[in-house]
């Protein structure tokens, strides 16, 4: 006779329907497959932990977002925010779909060029552009978004030295009702600093002002903030046309749309709290269309959407290493995914699902990573099924920021695979190895092992 599958025994106190910090109990569905491929098989072949990206979801999300904006506004252009996920395979999916590149460092700029993005389709943002980076960007005709006056003057100097005529926009920070206001970056709208910068650029005639840019923050839950931002940029654009007869070619509204992840401490899950692309698009497009910009001069709308385009396409697979009881009787489960691989666990309550069928029984669990540190908590309170050592877990919506902010710590960073639209698996980043990690190290002669042993 076939034996029955074993679930570890559980007894749990009933708390008369009181929601605890673990939330009301909801039935947990296992996530056994990603794009038709078994999680078990993926881990067996590529190891655990494992990052998985779905090309199907990447493209679908991009097309959804593009359709929503382009049916509401005549001219729309996405620029892929490299810092969100700059694995070449991911960038190239977005570039194939038609996205430009948005970069914030010399390194990201080099990557975009290497990925074949024409210079004129690279937006160069951020406060840290080195002189060499700027020279290259000027020569390539890239769109340089000026962050501060020091950069503005450096560009003037380079232009005077004959490097070429920089194509520029300025980054503008403003009050959109969002707290905290990101006023570290760019020139302020309300206090007139933005106008000061614009006057300096337009009067010099050494640079070509092509656009206006803002990035009001990240994971913005109120679409109305974008209406305010777009309106303020439109007011500047009409002012520039009135004063200088200069038509602004594009308005770049930055990134910041929320993904469907749930923030820590939030009462409403992200799937309900995050505005849809439709809501953001309505806010931005109606503000631009209703503005005083002449219809024939309506600027190109540029979007630097990061997390909302890539979060859903990423999955992190892992394995249960051990189960423990904490001193107060609470359950602790240790998995092989540490916070170094899931940086976003510091602010998200990530959805963690079992990768095999489970019963409806669950336990209040703290989910730890394998790092020997107290901060290594993936979920501090999760209503979780009874997994055993060796069982697999899937963490959803991890496509944004984790594959760029990850830290190598005590062990190698794992493989990243992409499932293409036909269900074929491609390794897009190899698991690190010792060779890779020590390649940059240098040992002073007197510390070489032979000498060291003599002492």
């Amino acid at each position: 006779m076939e034996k029955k599958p074993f679930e570890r025994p559980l007894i749990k106190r009933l708390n008369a329907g009181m929601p605890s910090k673990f939330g009301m109990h909801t039935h947990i569905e296992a996530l056994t497959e990603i794009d038709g491929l078994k999680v078990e098989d993926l881990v067996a072949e590529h190891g655990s932990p494992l990052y998985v990206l779905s090309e199907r979801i990447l493209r679908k999300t991009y097309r959804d977002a593009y359709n929503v904006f382009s049916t509401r506004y005549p001219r729309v252009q996405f620029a892929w925010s490299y810092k969100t996920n700059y694995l070449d395979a991911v960038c190239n999916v977005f570039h194939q779909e038609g996205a430009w590149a948005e970069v914030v460092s010399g390194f990201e700029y080099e990557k975009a060029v290497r990925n074949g993005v024409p210079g004129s389709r690279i937006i160069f943002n951020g406060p840290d552009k080195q002189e060499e980076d700027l020279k290259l960007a000027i020569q390539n005709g890239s769109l340089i978004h000026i962050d501060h006056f020091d950069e503005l003057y450096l560009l003037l100097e380079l232009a005077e030295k004959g490097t070429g005529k920089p194509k520029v926009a300025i980054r503008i920070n403003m009050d959109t009702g969002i707290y905290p206001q990101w006023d570290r970056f760019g020139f302020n709208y309300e206090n007139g600093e933005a106008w000061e910068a614009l006057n300096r650029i337009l009067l010099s005639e050494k640079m070509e002002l092509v656009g206006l840019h803002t990035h009001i923050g990240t994971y913005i839950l109120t679409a109305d903030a974008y209406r305010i931002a777009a309106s303020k940029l439109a007011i500047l654009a009409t002012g520039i046309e009135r004063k200088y007869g200069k038509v602004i070619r594009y308005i770049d509204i930055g990134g910041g749309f929320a993904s469907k992840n749930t923030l820590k401490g939030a009462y409403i899950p992200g799937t309900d709290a995050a505005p849809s692309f439709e809501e953001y698009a309505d806010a931005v497009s109606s503000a631009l269309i209703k503005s005083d910009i002449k219809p024939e001069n309506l600027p190109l709308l540029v979007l630097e959407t990061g997390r909302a385009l890539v979060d859903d396409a990423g999955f992190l697979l892992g394995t249960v290493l051990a189960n423990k009881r904490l001193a107060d009787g609470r359950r602790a489960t240790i998995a092989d995914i540490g916070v170094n691989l899931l940086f976003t666990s510091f602010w998200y309550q990530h959805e963690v699902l079992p990768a095999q069928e489970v019963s409806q029984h669950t336990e209040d669990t703290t989910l730890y990573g394998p790092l020997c540190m107290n901060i290594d908590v993936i979920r501090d309170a999760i209503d979780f099924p009874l997994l055993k050592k060796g069982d697999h877990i899937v963490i959803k919506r991890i496509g944004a920021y984790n594959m760029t902010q990850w830290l190598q710590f005590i062990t190698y960073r794992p493989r990243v695979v992409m499932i293409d639209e036909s269900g074929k698996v491609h390794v897009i980043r190899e698991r690190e190895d010792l060779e890779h990690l020590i390649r940059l190290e240098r040992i002073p002669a007197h510390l070489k092992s032979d000498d060291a042993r003599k002492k």
Partner: protein
Amino acid sequence: MIRLKKNIAVSDTGFVFDPSTGESFTVNETGMKIIGYLKEGKSSEEITSLITQEYNIDPLSFEKYSQDFMDMLKQYDMLEYEKEV
């Protein structure tokens, strides 16, 4: 020998009631089995053998999970120790 306290009530739908504290608990299928065997006065060796015959688990792994389960029963104050006769 360890025993389940006599007054603990167990329903066959997976609910456990402790009349001395008024508290209710849920158990899953394997938990239910173990509690049933404890009530019948079976030893831990007997329980291990019965469970490993019925379920797909080896004795050593089962011991690990049952130990944890017994700790929870102890924590909920449901066990008593009976002197060997």
